[in-house]
């Protein structure tokens, strides 16, 4: 699987544009737009975690929604059953995601390609089934009554504040992932994706690098899950269904795998289009499907590729 070439500057530029438009929407939007914005930011976090995993490490996870679920359920349980402060819940969710992700990663990273896809799918589905039938986790009905944190005297149950809070988290995660992407670990992941045998023979611990990045990615997904639970006030097993992972993958492919900002753009575009199409007609899936096919046929590197082309065009005509 090819990741797009990195163009650090463009990546940052795009990210800044996206953040600015988010602030704009937040200021001028109504209650629902703010909610939608929050949801999109959370999805962007999830998409970035997948993008890092697939784009850098070449690990395509079709069970990554499991970590959304882990984050969301641990937040719910810590809050409802143990009465822990919501902000702390999110932090703990990240730690739990990191640890579980690393451990799982350690076992499964020796598989590759489709086998990796399938083993993640299997784990994800097992988690989903477990949540679906487990009474402690609320079974198919899930758990409700989850509240958002109060930070620095601000009640994040107010949508305006919550979306700013999410935006700050998005910036932090972006900065973190961008740094990791360019770091030796990031480059080694690139190298592993292209030729893992050679990295081994150069003395790189392929297994360690891969499971570490799986853990990192899981932690971010888990954060997204925790935030999603707080956004909605409830969590249900659907959050960890494999189709959610599938939609995440769609977002990053549409955006352009491996470009981070592209993943966010993909999340924004896919989510908004899906939302709008589904209001328009009952057969919106048909439209979406057609859209995906067009992207594959005409946008080789997704929207990111399009932007790259646009940039080159501008440079050439200068």
């Amino acid at each position, binding site marked *: 699987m090819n990741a797009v070439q990195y163009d650090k500057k463009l990546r940052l530029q795009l990210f800044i544009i996206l953040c600015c438009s988010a602030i704009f929407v937040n200021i001028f939007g109504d209650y*629902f737009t703010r909610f939608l914005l929050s949801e999109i930011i959370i999805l962007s976090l999830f998409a970035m975690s997948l993008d890092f995993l697939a784009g850098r490490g070449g690990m395509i996870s079709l069970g990554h929604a499991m970590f959304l679920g882990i984050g969301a359920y641990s937040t719910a349980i810590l809050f409802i059953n143990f009465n822990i402060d919501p902000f702390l819940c999110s932090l703990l969710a990240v730690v739990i995601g990191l640890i579980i992700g690393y451990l799982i990663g350690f076992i499964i990273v020796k598989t590759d390609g489709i086998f990796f896809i399938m083993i993640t799918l299997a784990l994800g589905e097992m988690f989903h089934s477990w949540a*679906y*039938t487990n009474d402690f986790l609320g079974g198919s*009905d899930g758990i*409700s009554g989850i509240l958002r944190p109060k930070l620095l005297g601000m009640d994040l149950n107010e949508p305006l504040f919550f979306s700013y809070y999410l935006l700050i988290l998005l910036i932090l995660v972006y900065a973190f992932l961008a740094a990791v992407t360019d770091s030796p670990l990031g480059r080694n992941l690139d190298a592993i994706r292209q030729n893992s045998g050679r990295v081994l023979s150069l003395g790189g611990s392929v297994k360690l690098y891969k499971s570490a990045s799986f853990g990192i990615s899981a932690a971010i997904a888990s954060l997204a899950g925790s935030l999603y639970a707080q956004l909605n006030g409830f969590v249900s097993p659907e959050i960890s269904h494999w189709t959610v992972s599938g939609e995440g993958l769609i977002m990053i492919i549409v955006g352009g795998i491996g470009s981070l900002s592209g993943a966010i753009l993909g999340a924004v575009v896919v989510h908004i289009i899906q939302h709008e199409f*589904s209001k328009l007609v*009952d057969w*919106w899936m048909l439209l979406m499907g057609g859209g995906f096919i067009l992207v594959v046929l005409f946008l080789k590197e997704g929207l990111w590729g399009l932007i790259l082309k646009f940039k080159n065009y501008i440079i050439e005509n200068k």
Partner: protein
Amino acid sequence: SKAENLKIGMLLPYSGAVAIIGEEITNALELAFEEVNYEISGRKLEIIRADTEYKPNIALKKARELIFSKKVDILAGTVSSSVALAVRDLVVSTKTPFIVANAGANQITRKKCSKYIIRVSFSNYQINAPMGPWLANYGIKTAFLLSANYAAGKEQMSAFKSTFEASGGKIVGEEYTPHRKTKDFGPYLGRIKSSGADAVYVFYAGGEAINFIKQAHSFGLADVMKITGAGWTTSPLFIPAQKKAALGFIGILNYVPSIETKENLEFQRAYKEKFGRIASEFAVQGYDTGKMIVEALKSLSGDTSNKELLAEELSKVSIIGPRGPLTIDPKTNNVIQNMYIFEVVNSANGPVLKILDKIEAVKDPGTGCSL
């Protein structure tokens, strides 16, 4: 000045595998609105459809949009219980009257009840509980329970189990199959057959209902025991596909198409004329939802400015619908309605549901609810 439209937000699955139920409910609701030409006291009735995709998180988003952006006056719908529970806190905190048109989770009108939530469909307990004593009386001494492994399935089974055991029956085994993932009941049918029970009591819907009935037939299950259960298993939506395999099934439900009241005959005629098929129990729930909305709005002369009043008015409505007289239980806001016990029998037009018994004015006990 021109009066604003009365907006009814429909929170239903319109895409994917369960879209048929969303369709049925909406169709019939439109029928009810057509009877008043979409107009109440000079205000137009407007239906805004929102596709939940059968997913709680999507539904919650759509509900937010309906409430905050579309500013609907009343929210109606939800097929799935988890969807209803997901939007529960939202409608209560925004004081939006919410008419539950299908979702049957008991808690909606028990622990999680609210004066803004009015259920015109049923509670899972309400449907299945009367079947316990009835079957015991019918001569069934032992039963095997089978349903899909999710909250609704388990609630229905436990409702039946509690009353059946209280009437002296015995459950000899129970099995919960992966929800919406079971295509082949072969592995279960073998066990059920060899359990020696007098009857199997099942609840399935959709493709699972069709497959279960057909496969039970092909394995000759009816030769050794009675096949009984919650009536959706042989809903008019599925009978055309189940065909003869459904014959002999004894079920219980809040509605069967063969009820011979003038309300029902008229309703079935109108539905068939417009949509070309027999209306299912889902359609009836949609129709009654529409009727209740119309009645409540009429008595308020179309004034929806006070949501609390609107919710109160909705819970006071009592109508005679296709399934018989309906009133809302003031203790729980759950509907009080008749239950019909039927058997699938053959007729010139293929299998039909023949009513064996009618149990009147069934309520949900509503434990734990305080409005």
